[in-house]
């Protein structure tokens, strides 16, 4: 059966890989091409690369770097950061990238999501929603853009529903509060999102251990589990050591899904529409 997707999320800042905490204080952790090579060796499920400067600085994506990463990458690659037009999105796909992620543009230019999905097909379009929790007494989140600097009134659940209709093939929900903390995914957030999801969803922000990933999958079933710090740091002093779960560990994740068992019956191969 389909397995949960375990996804390293790499942040690029000034051409180098960085890690942040709650979207601030970027620390250099290494060379992006080298990281791709290591994830190749570990046969990672897929990779997300986000340029955290491009929207804020209003610059073009770094096509040279994207091309080099795509050439090296033996698994599906998703790139996000600074995409504002369908032409930019198409150019990035042509460089050998499987999916493009729109984030700031989702709130600033709502028509863009549909235009890019029409041009490339929705399977190539990801909406990434960066969120902060509003208050502790209820499960309510607000969406931010431009690397967490610009707050929008948009409530997460309404924007999530809208993205599904508007053409996203996948939605990544990124908890700014949990970013870099390694305290675990926000499971309340994850459950609230998964129950209304008709398309694949991925959660990012807070993963600190393989057990955190197991908890996410046990809570939500088949989802994408993305992580930055977990796959880049090792040990309590956060030494930089790129790592990724083995195939055996990934079997544990797969077993955590309710869908891990083969279906009790198999539809005939020649299923006709009802």
């Amino acid at each position: 059966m389909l397995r949960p997707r375990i996804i390293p999320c790499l942040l690029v800042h000034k051409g180098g890989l960085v890690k942040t905490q709650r979207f601030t204080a970027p620390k250099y952790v290494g060379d992006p091409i080298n990281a791709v090579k290591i994830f190749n060796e570990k046969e990672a499920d897929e990779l997300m690369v986000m340029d955290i400067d491009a929207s804020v600085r209003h610059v073009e994506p770094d096509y040279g770097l994207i091309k080099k990463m795509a050439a090296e990458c033996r698994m599906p690659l998703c790139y996000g950061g600074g995409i504002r037009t369908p032409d930019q999105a198409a150019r990035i796909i042509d460089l050998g990238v499987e999916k493009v992620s729109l984030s700031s543009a989702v709130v600033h230019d709502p028509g863009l999501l549909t235009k890019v999905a029409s041009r490339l097909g929705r399977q190539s379009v990801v909406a990434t929603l960066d969120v902060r929790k509003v208050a502790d007494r209820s499960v309510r989140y607000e969406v931010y853009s431009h690397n967490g600097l610009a707050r929008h009134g948009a409530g997460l659940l309404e924007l999530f529903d809208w993205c599904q209709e508007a053409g996203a093939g996948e939605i990544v929900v990124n908890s700014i509060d949990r970013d870099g903390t390694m305290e675990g995914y926000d499971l309340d957030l994850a459950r609230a999102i998964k129950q209304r999801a008709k398309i694949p969803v991925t959660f990012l922000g807070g993963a600190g251990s393989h057990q955190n990933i197991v908890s996410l999958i046990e809570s939500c079933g088949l989802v994408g589990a993305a992580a930055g710090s977990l796959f880049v740091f090792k040990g309590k002093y956060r030494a930089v050591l790129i790592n990724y779960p083995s195939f055996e560990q990934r079997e544990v994740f797969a077993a955590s899904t309710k869908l891990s068992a083969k279906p009790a019956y198999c539809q005939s191969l020649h299923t006709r529409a009802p």
Partner: protein
Amino acid sequence: MIRLVDYGLGNVQAFLNVYRRLGIPAERAVSAQDLRDAERLILPGVGSFDHAMNLLNASGLREPLEDLVLRRRIPVLGVCVGMQMLASRSDEGAEPGLNWIPGSVRALSSATAASQLAMPHMGWNEVDVERVSHLFSRAAEAPRFYFLHSYFFDCEDPAHVVATTGYGLRFASVVSSGNIYGVQCHPEKSHHFGADLLRRFSAVPVC
């Protein structure tokens, strides 16, 4: 020489990278001229069925391709939407398919068993080989590949189904008929599983 049919869709470079690492000669074909030395063909494809068929039909590559595949019986591998293009038609669009393997392409969500599942089918899934094929060895390890699609190939003739994959329903993930092969997954982005399949395709015997 393996020729990647480059009519404008699909990650052609990713295939070239895999073959380069395997040390197997492969080049893209953008014109009829480029196809002349083809001993194996790969037809990639992503996005919508009609868009892919329209681009292929407008590329100038369709006629030489049909000559190579249908008359000279050069092995061809359709990948993802490239596999769907091998069919007669698709529920996704209005254009006819190549009709090289009879069948219809249907939405996964049209099957009751898959109608409540998230679409597209996205991620790593197992391929259960049901028929002996040059594409698969009898290895102990059940192969798995990366899938990213919302439609599946409903073969008219079950004998053309080589392997199936489960996502709600069990659908044909690998098809073949003579020199014509199709895989629904993305072997060019499926690590050693994909590289093995692409290597084996390069060595399929000519009919």
